[in-house]
């Protein structure tokens, strides 16, 4: 299966869990937003403990079955707490 290298930005608690601000992460081509979250939770089990982990794709909240591409700017969004 062909794979792709995703560039993932990390913030807040996810940055602490992964231990870096930017992550290069290999996924099969055609992987979707939930595929990525499931895979990351296997690699970083502490992500399971969070109230929620959303994915942003190119500065927008990702849609449920949105397919990811190498050129996308991807970010993990743990529960926000601004204000």
């Amino acid at each position, binding site marked *: 299966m062909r794979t792709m290298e995703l560039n993932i930005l990390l913030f807040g*608690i996810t940055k602490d869990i992964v231990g870096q601000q930017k992550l290069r992460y290999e996924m099969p081509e055609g992987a979707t937003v939930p595929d990525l979250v499931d895979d990351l939770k296997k690699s970083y089990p502490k992500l399971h403990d969070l109230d929620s982990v959303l994915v942003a794709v190119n500065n927008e909240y990702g849609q449920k079955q949105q397919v990811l591409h190498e050129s996308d700017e991807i970010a993990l969004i743990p529960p926000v707490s601004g204000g």
Partner: protein
Amino acid sequence: MNSDEKISILLTDDPLSVDTALKVTQSNRAGAIDIFVGTVRNNTQQRSVERLDFEAYHTMAVKEMEKLANQACERWPVEKIAIYHRNGTLQIGDIAVVIAVSTPHRQAAFEACKFVIDTLKQTVPIWKKEIFDDGEVWVSAHP
């Protein structure tokens, strides 16, 4: 900051100015300006807080703040709206967020202002870490 603009958005490491938010939302057609100011509290759940560290996904946060302003303009007769949020390290008493909304009559200004702060807390990718004398915690991260 151009006060002719209907929408004014700011995400900055510098101190926020309530005066500026008031100035940019003043309008001859407005009979009301509602301003919400969020400040840093010195305690949470009976623990004493020393300071807060804010972190933002800057580009997306600004985009989401713009969306909120546009949604408020769609739902209420908003003359002008300002949404300011602070980033970086804040001390007790510092201003973390300022929201100002001007409308022809006060009811809409109150409602729009409440909508913006309530929704901002749910959607805008900004995170705060509370620093205690004996540790630190990312707010809302865990159930």
